[in-house]
């Protein structure tokens, strides 16, 4: 079981390395969007620091959303998904490995990039740390939920827009607790409760999202 998980994870990471453009696009999008705000809002450093967590979180969320299509699309088009559906181990395990690879190539990189972008907003060191932590806890959740939406809309016309519509409401709690963690740390109440809630949501999604996504993938393969 572990060898299948590791094998699929390694394969997807290697594939992402060969398709560097896709990963770089996502990161470039994040950098662009977060850089536009200080330019548009002006140099009021207090205001910038206040809106920074929300903007960085929304930008990370939108950047992640741009990348969900590549989770299953090419496997579906070239027939690899059939091989996955016929694997001798649970399909959910493969989905989990693919979501993990997606997280490494988007969420993890975005979380590491966020402190740099935070400089433009004048975020203090401690708040940057909290922001980074909240992104590290929240972005795996985005990848898992994104996998469900990508599986549900696989092979449909207008899949991108539809999956965005499906995901928006599901992303709301992640956004609230993620950016809320930084605001709470700033106000002195401590970010712990927000981070614990994010962690709890992640623990919930970790087993459930792959199961839901694999059921949706079986439907997509069935109707192919």
């Amino acid at each position: 079981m572990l060898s299948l998980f590791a094998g699929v994870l390694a394969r997807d990471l290697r594939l992402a390395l060969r398709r560097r453009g896709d990963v770089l696009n996502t990161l470039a999008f994040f950098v662009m969007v977060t850089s536009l705000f200080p330019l548009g809002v002006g140099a009021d450093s207090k205001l910038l620091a206040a809106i920074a967590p929300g903007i960085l979180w929304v930008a990370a969320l939108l950047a992640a959303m741009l990348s969900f299509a590549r989770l299953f699309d090419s496997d579906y088009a070239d027939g690899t998904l059939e091989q996955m559906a016929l694997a001798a181990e649970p399909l959910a395990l493969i989905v989990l490995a693919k979501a993990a690879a997606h997280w490494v190539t988007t969420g993890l990189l975005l979380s590491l990039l966020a402190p740099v972008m935070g400089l433009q907003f004048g975020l203090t060191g401690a708040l940057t740390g909290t922001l980074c932590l909240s992104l590290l806890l929240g972005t795996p959740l985005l990848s898992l939920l994104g996998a469900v939406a990508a599986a549900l809309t696989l092979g449909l016309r207008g899949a991108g827009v539809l999956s965005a519509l499906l995901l928006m409401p599901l992303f709301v709690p992640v956004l609230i607790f993620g950016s809320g963690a930084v605001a709470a740390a700033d106000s002195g109440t401590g970010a712990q409760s927000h981070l614990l809630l994010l962690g709890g949501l992640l623990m919930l999604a970790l087993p459930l999202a792959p199961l839901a996504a694999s059921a949706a993938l079986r439907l997509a393969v069935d109707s192919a």
Partner: protein
Amino acid sequence: MLETLGVACSRGDRTLFSQLDLSLGGGRLLRVMGANGSGKTSLLRILCGLRAPNAGEVRWRGAPIASSEAREGFHRELLYIGHLNGLKDEFSAMENLAASAVLAGMASDPMPLRRALERMELAHIAGLPARHLSQGQKRRVALARLLLAADRPLWILDEPFNALDAKAVALVEQVLAAHAAAGGAVVFTTHFEPAIPAARIDRLDLDRMQDGQPC
């Protein structure tokens, strides 16, 4: 080993076939025939459990493959190669074969993989990204999985000979015949007469079905 009981399949409102009863034992080759759109691919996908039949059920060693407990055991004994090759353009032939082996739960040591590619006469291009391969070469990479799966009793192959040259066709025919001789079962579709001794091939013609019985 593999049985179907009253299997029916429809596409939209059109019934492709119904009341199909099949029984396939080890050592047999079954060639599914029929015109374009007669449901050959749909039947193969039903047989391997990728698609649910509209009626009836498929059984493997007596257990319905639709149940999730039976499914994993069944998939461990099955090799399916669809009409899509399942290759990533960015990966070399070797990497593609290794990725398929991992998914199928086969050992992915490089030695047997290299030998399989050699036998498919792909050794000289094993390191080339699949995007630079011709259709026939891509098909051969996909079919190299056959050589890794000799221990899987059931092979289901959708148009395995597509895009292959005469030499490769002969090689694949030889591999299929050897698999049957070793007690395995093969279900496949093709549009031209395979050069395997006819006595060893059962035929199922989806164009000429009467009450599900091939005539």
